């Protein structure tokens, strides 16, 4: 990838601030944990500093009046140790549990979300809307609706980071990651790549444009519409030659893909796998990894011949196939 192929970073204009705006349903929850920690830790540091200051003033060498005898008895000193071991630990563990609960929420995908595919590559973010709309370094989403992102990387590790939403998700090549957010305010927000990814890492930034639902619908309409992801996937299914084996009437014995998405498949050598995005991706790139029971491991690997964006389209296509549908060769 040369510099000429990359895009200029887009920075939505933001005023100077000491605290970031919080414009997702998760942001307020994260901030609440943060402020609690800030309060508790502030208390600890103040306590330590106050004690230090008091001791410095009172027991400085020049202060001859200070009583330096009458030290605490042994039992009191031991008791004190255990107080300052257990008391802060218990309090902080409570905050840890709270932070853990919010963390689990960050990781729990909402069921009714709008699904958008995102691909990180050196050095840009590419987005694919379900209707086939495509964007680079900009993502338009409606306000007040959960958005689920399926993230993939074309090359090295990137990280999808929107500070205003308090979400960050590393995008590790070779696997799919999921993240979600629900924006609570219309506006433009920073999108950063947070994992160092090479020369133009700091240019790999863009913006999330949050629109009112009506404007979002208008925006979708205005986009130069290719066909939907699934339709494009169908075309790819033929051009990559998948249909040669997986299509109806094929002479080669390969699993029928209709209706398999989300269903368990028995595997050669025992066990089953639920067909999801990652399994389909693996089956295209590493077909020998998990072979469906009753089939020969004859499928060639498409690693190195197919990009992450095309794989996502193929997945969209396979997902769209209902059980009874025949795949046309």
């Amino acid at each position, binding site marked *: 990838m040369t510099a000429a192929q990359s895009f200029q970073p887009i920075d939505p204009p933001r005023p100077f601030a000491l605290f*970031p705006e919080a414009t997702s349903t998760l942001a307020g929850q994260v901030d609440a*944990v943060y402020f609690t920690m800030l309060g508790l830790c502030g208390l600890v*540091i103040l306590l330590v*500093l106050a004690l230090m200051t008091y001791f410095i003033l009172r027991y400085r060498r020049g202060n001859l009046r200070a009583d*330096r*005898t009458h030290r605490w008895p042994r039992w009191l000193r031991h008791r004190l140790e255990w107080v300052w071991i257990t008391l802060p630990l218990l309090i902080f563990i409570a905050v840890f549990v709270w932070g853990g609960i*919010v963390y689990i929420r960050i990781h729990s995908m909402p069921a009714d979300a709008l699904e958008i595919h995102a691909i990180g590559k050196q050095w840009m973010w590419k987005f694919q809307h379900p209707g086939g709309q495509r964007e680079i370094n900009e993502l338009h989403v409606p306000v007040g609706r959960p958005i689920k992102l399926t993230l993939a990387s074309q090359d090295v*590790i990137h990280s999808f980071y929107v*500070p205003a939403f308090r979400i960050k998700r590393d995008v590790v090549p070779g696997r799919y990651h999921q993240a979600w957010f629900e924006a609570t305010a219309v506006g433009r927000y920073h999108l950063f790549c947070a994992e160092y990814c090479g*020369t133009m890492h700091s240019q790999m930034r863009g913006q999330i444009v949050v629109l009112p639902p009506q404007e979002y619908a208008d925006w979708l309409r205005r986009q130069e519409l290719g066909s939907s992801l699934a339709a494009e996937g169908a075309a790819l299914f033929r051009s990559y030659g998948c249909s040669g084996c997986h299509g109806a009437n094929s002479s080669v014995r390969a699993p029928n893909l209709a209706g398999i998405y989300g269903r368990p498949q028995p595997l050669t050598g025992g066990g089953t796998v639920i067909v999801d995005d990652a399994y389909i991706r693996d089956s295209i790139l590493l077909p020998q990894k998990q072979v469906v029971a009753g089939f020969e491991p004859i499928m060639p690997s498409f690693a190195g011949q197919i990009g992450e964006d095309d794989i996502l389209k193929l997945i969209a296509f396979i997902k769209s196939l209902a059980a009874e549908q025949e795949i046309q060769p």
Partner: protein
Amino acid sequence: MSAIPQTGSYLDSGYSLRSWLLTTDHKRIAWLFLLSLTLFFFLGGTAAALIRLELVTPTGDLVGQDTYNRLFSLHGIIMVWFFLVPSIPATLGNFLVPLMIGARDMAFPRLNLASWYLYIIGGLFTFATVISGGVDTGWTFYTPYSSMFSNTHVVLAIVGVFVVGFSSILTGLNIVVTVHRLRAPGMTWFRLPLFIWSTYATAVIMLLATPVLAMTLLLVALERLLGIGFFDPRLGGDPLLFQHLFWFYSHPAVYIMVLPGMGVVSELMAAFSKKAVFGYTYVAFSSIAIAFLGFLVWGHHMFTAGQSMYGSLAFGLLSFMVSVPSAIKVFNWTMTMRKGTLSFETPMLYALGFIGLFTIGGLTGLFLATMAIDVHVHDTYFVIAHFHYIMVGGMVTAYLGGLHYWWPKITGRLYSERWGQIAAVLMFFGFNLTFFPQFILGYLGMPRRYHSYPDEFQVLHVLSSAGAVVLAFAYLLPLCYLGWSLKYGRRAGSNPWGTTGLEWTTSSPPPKYNFEQIPRVDYGPYRYPIVSGTPPTETRHG
């Protein structure tokens, strides 16, 4: 052991270059490390200065983006492996461990020298990396970027770190065996100064963790050179495997970097409070606890990386646990001052600075272990600020405090107390100005390793860079006045601070074999009399 007749100090036992380069005297080897570490510190510092200068403006204009990426990689690699890891163990540790336990040298004097040569060979590879164009992976060498994508001299840099790792292992081995085998008669474990406890714990981590780093880096080199797939998914590898292996070393390495500093601060608090350290056994065992727990928390570097959510929960909880022994130390240092007789010479200023800065660094670590917060601030300036509070505010501060405290012992000379205090105070303010704004920047969302950034972050970046100027100036000061004292400083007596510890019972600088007669120890450390009203006599002039 029979008495060894002493003729002059270790500094007088030979003046030729050969007498230094082939020495097996732990005190001279400490000097070799001190000089080479100082060189690397200023090299790494120069890289940091250029980084801060570049970040004064939001656009990347001072250096190109490739240069910038090489600068922060170089800064990290040098500061971590060529300064922080060996800093206290190889200099003060080398010098003081035998003196403090009443031994004549380290257990393996030749290995000790070999450790320095390995350090230098590793350093030469790092120099070669810089001269041939540098490396741009960051000090973390994350795959598959480092193994398959970077066009810079990754293997050369890896060889440097690989080799210097063996220097760590040898120093660690030497310290462990020395503490076990060479303690003077009567010097039981609970009569050891706390500096020995923490250095011992450090040495154990060095021995156990560093080989993992060596293996991991070897795998990266194999993937890069021979295309054997360990980490690149296109070759069937897993990028997260690298992160697990790397942090399995690098999180314990954080404790390699800070534990010795804690040991120094324990000594300084006792010395300048003229009082035993509060809760000796708690402080001693907290070092061991840190060494143990430090191995169980590596996954907290990967909360957003895609490891299992339940794995993250376990690592988060363990990370809260590892903060307990650090908190024990802070509370005990603070209580050490109670009913003491406090004086505020330069080393004490550093020790007090350490407690404040380390506490902030440690508490912000709890923010990062709170997983919901970490998702937001991971890989931002918040993390940068956090670990600089530990590494610079903590470790470098303790290192300089220790260097000032034992300087009269090491050199036999007194430095200018006035200049020492000025530098210590300047450093404290410069440090906070540099790194405090970075906490705010981090929560605002400023990612680390960014060559250019959105405009609204500029004010805080300018503050941080201004602080760096103060800090740079403050770091140059000790170089001047300590150097000056070597020739013009007044002679120090054997115990200029009037403090306890076997190292102060021998002359300054110590004779070649440390003690004419191996001391017999029948008392604990920090035996200061309880004073009532009258201050102890001035033990130091001026």
